[in-house]
């Protein structure tokens, strides 16, 4: 059974435009999937649907075989909290909180006390090489560091699925390669799937599988390397 499965999902806007049509995709634990495609091809739309942040107009998204179609907003939020981690092109860190607190927030949301959550967050940050920067505020960190804090936050509750939308888009080549390495490393865990949207063909080559989108349709889906 696949960890995460899209079963012929489409996403249409009420005004008419079709963002995604009849995409089917099954991702297993340990897979590192790169989604590529020209601008406007529906990569982000697919990612939001896979991450239960958006609902498909038709089709189903299954998590560990369980259909998520009829779930309430609160149930979807609970799944996002426990099973998913998101990283976006922009870091979206809360500007009023330190790197440590930004990572601790989703941990505290699961009910853990502040001190324990901060301990856990510190360990995660240290694992990403940010152990000594955890007290800094987001605006005191470099772009690459911020994105690593955002990855740490996505990993806060040890998610089964890690989704990233052009996480290296705002970074220089060196930082981009470093961040990409982190994802590759994270995907080595057999229990976890990593799905990453990227424009960078070089980086995409390093994924274990590549899904190519054109005009809202999956045109190729192949294992690689």
């Amino acid at each position, binding site marked *: 059974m696949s960890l995460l499965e899209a079963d012929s999902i489409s996403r249409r806007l009420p005004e008419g435009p079709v963002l995604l049509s009849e995409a089917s995709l099954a991702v297993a634990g340990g897979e590192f999937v790169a989604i590529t495609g020209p601008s406007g091809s529906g990569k*982000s739309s697919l990612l*939001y649907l896979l*991450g239960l*942040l*958006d609902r498909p107009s038709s089709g189903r998204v299954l998590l560990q075989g369980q259909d998520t179609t009829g779930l309430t*907003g*609160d149930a979807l*939020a*609970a*799944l*996002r*909290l*426990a099973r*998913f981690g*998101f990283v*976006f*092109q*922009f870091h*979206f860190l*809360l*500007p*009023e*909180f330190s790197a440590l*607190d930004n990572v601790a*927030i*989703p941990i*505290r*949301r699961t009910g853990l006390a*502040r001190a324990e959550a901060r301990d856990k967050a510190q360990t995660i940050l240290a694992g990403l090489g940010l152990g000594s920067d955890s007290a800094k505020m987001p605006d005191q960190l470099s772009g690459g560091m911020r994105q690593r804090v955002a990855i740490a*936050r996505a990993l806060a509750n040890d998610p089964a699925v890690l989704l990233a*939308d*052009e996480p290296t888009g705002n970074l220089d080549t060196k930082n981009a390669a470093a961040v990409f390495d982190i994802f590759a490393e994270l995907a080595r865990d057999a229990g976890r799937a990593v799905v990453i949207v990227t424009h960078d063909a070089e980086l995409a080559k390093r994924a274990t599988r590549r899904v190519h989108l054109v005009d809202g349709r999956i045109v190729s889906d192949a294992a690689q390397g």
Partner: protein
Amino acid sequence: MSLLTDIARGMLARRKRQTLVSVAGVALGVGFFIGTAAVMRGFQTYFISQIIDVQPHITIKDELRRPLPQAAELANPGAAVALAGLRPQDRIRGIRAPGDRMAILEAIPGAAAAPLLTGQALMRYGARDVSATVTGIDPLRYPRVSNIAKDITQGSLDDLRTTANGIIIGVGLAERLGISLGDSMNAVSPRGVTLLMKVVGIFRTGIVSLDQTQAYTLLKVNQILQDRPSVVNQIVLRLEDVRQAEPLARMIEARFGERTESWEEQNANILTVFTIQNSITFSITGAILLVATFGIFNVISTVVFEKTRDIAILKSLGFTERDIQVLFLIQGLAAGAIGAAMGCALGALIIEGMAQIRFGSGATSGNDRFILAREWQIYAIASGVAIVSAAVAAIIPARRAARLDPVQTIRGAA
């Protein structure tokens, strides 16, 4: 919960100045309410306690609320009767069977009653004539319904009984007549009876109109003076619990038929003025609070608008719509609570400031300063209203925040 509080604090700290302005608005509203309410309530409570202290709580009069029906009306029930030039057929004035009534009234627990006969008389001493209201009292019962015993400054109430035709007069009346304790004067009633009366006591109530016109004799003596043997024209009552006055008055009137007025009815005009005063205070304070509430609405709306990204990311992290709504409600409540706390401090300052004010020396008997009500209930009401309205003001932006679609925001930011 403490997580949402932490996030809320972080968001509000970002808008310090705007938050401070709206908090100050709430504080002003609350502070002024506490200040004015303390003055109003202080004065009103004092005034009412004076009324309750000085006046009878219930007065039974020798009249009816409606005139008795005339013979022609009785003969044609339900018909429209026009009468002209007829003298009303009135019964002899006075409370019927006062003895029986006193017995019934004195059986009421927590009530003391005293029969009175009041009438006018002209006091004649030397060349001076001064008109006075003479009240015939029972010296055993009357002190239980009045402060007479306390007000007598010379002589004593007991001397009314031991002296033939003794009279106790107000200090102002004594001055106008030029008479002193132990002197005798003539009292002439409208019915033409003249009695030689001896001043056995002088009282001072502090109320000038009473001190200048009031005189007390034995009930029997006044019945002779007024030429109304055995007649009583008022029964006054004093109660342990003044709140029972109105219902008890209605019961007595229903039973006896005579017009019976509680202290509230007798002072209805001044009590109405108090009600008007209170509504003015409440509306002014309400207006201030409304403006302050609008300020809070403004701050929370601005925060929601500015924090669209943070709301989106919190939702993507797994925060529910309810979490987001609570997050902004907390911010409104916090602004309201801080405003209320500052307002309470301001109110206390205003009260203590007013307590220092003196109105100069002209006033009598120590009324040279504000009488202030320092009641915790005033603070509680003001704070409660402020916090509730702040929460209400935050509801609309909080709901809007909860409904924001994270996908739209994240797309827009990319």
